[in-house]
């Protein structure tokens, strides 16, 4: 393909905390070590370089992903290996919390990156989606109960993101619009990309939800039968696709009929369902007021004291994401992967 000096920069967000929560104990979720996150980023950089990306903005962190990448970047110097894009580590204060992700995304957006590659789970993507505006996301799963991000080899996501940044495909070909859920609890407003789950658990605690008897209600922006996590409870009653302009909900408990749901890796459990229905866009619904907590995309975030009013709205204008198969397909049809030094087949 042609390498253009005007190829836009790309951003990389790798959540240092993903893939390490309590679900390794309560289910058989995979452990996602820091070293493998660094490896994934190195594979991204190789693909970026092949598509002409010259500059990458990287979120720093306190647990060694950025440090590991820096060692890898410096280790390549003078080794005669193919050049990687210049990696610029964002100069920003670190809190070792979700705030770091939010800040990094805001800076990448201000710097005009073509897209942000996100390594994390549903929870990470939720934070990124709250700050990215119209900057598209290239999603990569490195978490646990992942319904939103792609479970894909990073090289291919890197290739698609690089081709998009280079202008080898159009936004219409490469990007898809996602739904989101907007939750209002008192004065507090939060977003979710997959589902909002109201639980009977009084404290945020270890964040994950793994006991079916603790689940009161689940509201899903999409609920696909082949997705792992809490949205699978909704999918078992009223499946809703990612591109369908509705969402769906279930109330759990009581004497309702039971159904089996894969709510976490290795955890297929019966969940009693008492009611279900569809969510229509831009029509707020009230959550049952109870003492408990609300999980956003699988992680308990908000404690409820039974006095707050909480409403939830499905919105169709959520974040843009890169459709990797469609991008690669369009790029190949256009000949964008032909190497300039070799003849055409």
């Amino acid at each position, binding site marked *: 393909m042609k390498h253009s000096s005007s190829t836009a920069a790309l951003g990389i967000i790798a959540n240092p905390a993903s893939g*390490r*929560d*309590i679900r390794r*104990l309560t289910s058989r979720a995979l452990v996602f070590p820091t070293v493998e996150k660094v490896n994934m980023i190195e594979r991204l950089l190789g693909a970026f370089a092949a598509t002409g990306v010259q500059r990458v903005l990287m979120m720093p962190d306190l647990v060694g992903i950025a*440090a590991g990448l820096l060692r890898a970047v410096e280790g390549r110097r003078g080794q005669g290996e193919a050049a990687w894009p210049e990696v610029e580590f964002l100069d920003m204060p670190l809190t070792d919390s979700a705030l770091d992700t939010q800040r990094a995304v805001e800076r990448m957006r201000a710097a005009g990156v073509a897209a942000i590659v996100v390594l994390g789970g549903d929870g990470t993507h939720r934070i990124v989606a709250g700050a990215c505006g119209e900057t598209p996301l290239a999603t990569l799963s490195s978490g646990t109960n992942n319904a939103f991000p792609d479970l894909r080899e990073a090289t291919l996501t890197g290739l698609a993101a690089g081709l998009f940044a280079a202008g080898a495909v159009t936004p219409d070909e490469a990007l898809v619009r996602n739904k989101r859920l907007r939750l209002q609890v008192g004065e507090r407003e939060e977003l979710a990309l997959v589902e909002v789950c109201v639980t009977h*658990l*009084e404290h*945020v*605690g*270890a964040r994950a939800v793994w006991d079916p008897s603790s689940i009161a209600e689940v509201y899903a922006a999409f609920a696909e039968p082949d997705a792992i996590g809490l949205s699978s409870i909704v999918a078992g009653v009223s499946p809703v696709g990612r591109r369908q302009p509705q969402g769906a909900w279930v109330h759990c408990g009581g004497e309702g009929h039971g159904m089996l749901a894969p709510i976490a890796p290795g955890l297929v459990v019966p969940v009693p369902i008492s009611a279900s229905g569809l969510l229509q866009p831009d029509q707020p619904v009230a959550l049952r007021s109870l003492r408990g907590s609300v999980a956003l995309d699988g992680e308990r975030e908000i404690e409820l004291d039974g006095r707050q009013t909480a409403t939830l709205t499905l919105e169709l204008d959520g974040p843009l994401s890169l459709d990797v198969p469609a991008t690669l397909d369009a790029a190949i049809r256009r000949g964008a992967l032909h190497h300039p030094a070799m003849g055409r087949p």
Partner: protein
Amino acid sequence: MTKALTRDDLLKAYRTMRTIREFEERLHTDFATGEIPGFVHLYAGEEASATGVCMNLTAEDHIASTHRGHGHCIAKGVDPVGMMAEIWGRKTGTCKGKGGSMHIADLSVGMLGANGIVGGGGPLVCGTALAAKLRGQPYVSVCFFGDGASNQGTIFEAMNLASVWNLPVIFLAENNGYAEATSSKFSVACDNIADRASAFGMPGITVDGFDFFAVYEAAGAAIERARKGGGPSLVEVKLSRYYGHFEGDQQTYRAPGEVQNIRDTKDCLLQFARRVTANGQISQAELDAIDAEVKALIDGSVAKAKSDPKPSEADLLTDVYVSY
């Protein structure tokens, strides 16, 4: 599923954390007078870890502690009055004044001992866990260790043994970021200690050590798993110590304001109090009453320790050897 916390549980958790804090703050003050023999390593700041873990344990479960052991002792049920006397080197102490801060042990509550050997607890809990397993008892053993000990061979050997024999052990890594004066960023190759679990065929998780509720649930899941025969696991608790490695450590290796910032924003007692009062489970007056009771307890323990007798020459050779 971890047992839901009752109101009494919440009051107990707060009392335990406050007792540890008061005990350590008082030692910080008193050690500076030069009257206390030996070294003390204070646990202030890390209270949610010991408390969150030990509230899932019974007296029949065992723990092995570290040189920073006061919090583990109190959370496991060792009498703070006896501990204070022990630290002051008095005959009325938990170990008759012969052990001091780094060797407080009380087998009657399942406390195998603080330990001056970094990483020394791993092999000990493999022993108690093996005993429970061979006897068919549902008891678990917890090895508390730090980021420094995470690099010790004893910990790796113990993790391997626990995994090979499927022992009911929880390796509880309290990662406070510093091994003495060395930042774990320089000395722990994989940054997250939990990542090492997979090498020994066990699950490893990371949890916020400033949040009692998070530690309680995470440790509860690990302990329940071990009790049911699920084998060992590694729980990494990320937290911070408020004082130096030992009392007298000037902490020149820490950034200015680092500790104060944590005290102001993450402190486990502040977080706990804010959350249980905000949702109406506990009133501020109840918490204040516990604060006053705990202060009186610790004041009393210091006054008693100061006036209690020291071991005599005749005590020198007693308790040295034990016949089994």
